[in-house]
């Protein structure tokens, strides 16, 4: 195996990075793949609660980097999916305890034994972001159809271009189809026009997301929500499948979009 490192980042905070990581991880692991998630948000640990693993933490990423434990000891195995693991962020330690080269070393150590490494980036464009993208084979940028989120996403795309990273892909999260129809929310077409990067996923606003995180059970596990289906489709696209976008809006727009995204 040579694990692929996928970093989920956004620029702006609160747009759905952690939600995306948890759901993609579950979707990929449910498909029989071995997946390790790394919470890169040192000081603001969250992926553990979204995945429902908060009570099982003994060691964290800083313990690995500073040699207090073996990497395997800090990998928490998911209750439901035995091939899914979490390496939690440190909650109390100095943000600068981890460096980009530490991340590269950690991912290189994990790569031979896993299929996917998903890194949850903190918001912003500081050290934590640098750490999160250092080892990435592919970066997914999460945005909301909203002014400041799109603007910050563009900044991140610019920084990735400057670093000569592979072209990132975009996830538009919290789309509200009826607001789009009314002309009161940017459509995915609009966001694509502005950012001009490949759209890999469109996730609707869905209250099940909050219910799922209350329960600590990512919604991709429970079949029937629209957002869950959208995340599962993203996972399939990461696996190289061609999957049409959900029909959340008028037919015409979605067909056009599917073509746009399919074209790359």
């Amino acid at each position, binding site marked *: 195996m040579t694990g692929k490192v996928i970093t989920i980042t956004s620029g702006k905070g609160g747009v759905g990075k952690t939600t995306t990581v948890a759901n993609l991880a579950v979707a990929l692991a449910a498909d029989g793949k071995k997946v390790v998630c790394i919470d890169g948000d040192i000081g603001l640990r969250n992926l553990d609660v979204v995945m429902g693993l908060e009570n099982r933490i003994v060691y964290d990423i800083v313990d690995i980097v500073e040699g207090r434990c073996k990497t395997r000891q800090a990998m928490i195995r998911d209750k439901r999916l035995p091939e899914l693991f979490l390496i939690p962020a440190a909650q109390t330690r100095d943000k600068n305890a981890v460096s980009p080269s530490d991340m590269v070393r950690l991912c290189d150590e994990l790569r031979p034994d896993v299929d996917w490494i998903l890194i949850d980036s903190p918001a912003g464009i500081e050290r934590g972001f640098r750490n999160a993208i250092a080892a990435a084979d592919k970066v997914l940028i999460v945005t909301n159809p909203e002014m400041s989120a799109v603007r910050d996403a563009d900044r991140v795309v610019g920084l990735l271009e400057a670093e000569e990273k592979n072209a990132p892909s975009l996830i538009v999260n919290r789309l509200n189809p009826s607001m789009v129809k*009314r002309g009161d929310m*940017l459509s995915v077409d609009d966001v694509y026009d*502005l950012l001009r990067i490949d759209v890999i996923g469109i996730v609707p606003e869905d209250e099940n997301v909050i219910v799922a995180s209350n329960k600590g059970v990512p919604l991709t596990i429970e079949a029937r929500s629209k957002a869950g289906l959208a995340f599962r489709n993203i996972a399939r696209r990461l696996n190289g499948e061609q999957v049409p976008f959900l029909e959340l809006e008028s037919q015409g727009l979605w067909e056009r979009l599917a073509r746009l995204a399919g074209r790359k």
Partner: protein
Amino acid sequence: MSFFERLTGKKSASSAKERLQLVLIHDRVDITPAVLEALKEELLAVISRHVDIDPSSVHVELATEGRSQRLVADIPIKPVARRRAA
């Protein structure tokens, strides 16, 4: 119809898109409108030394193509005949 719509005759999403288009161009190239204006003045001064142009019909602007920006200058030259007559 919302208050915003009545006031501007525009849906809020299309106004968001227009505003973002401008914001993103300036974020990407780090050229403020003031710098662009200064650049235009200097460009005109240099060109007028060699060619007869009408400053009021000159357009210098930032344009976007995909993810790259370019500086586009449209500088009409006064016709020779009219220049002789003047």
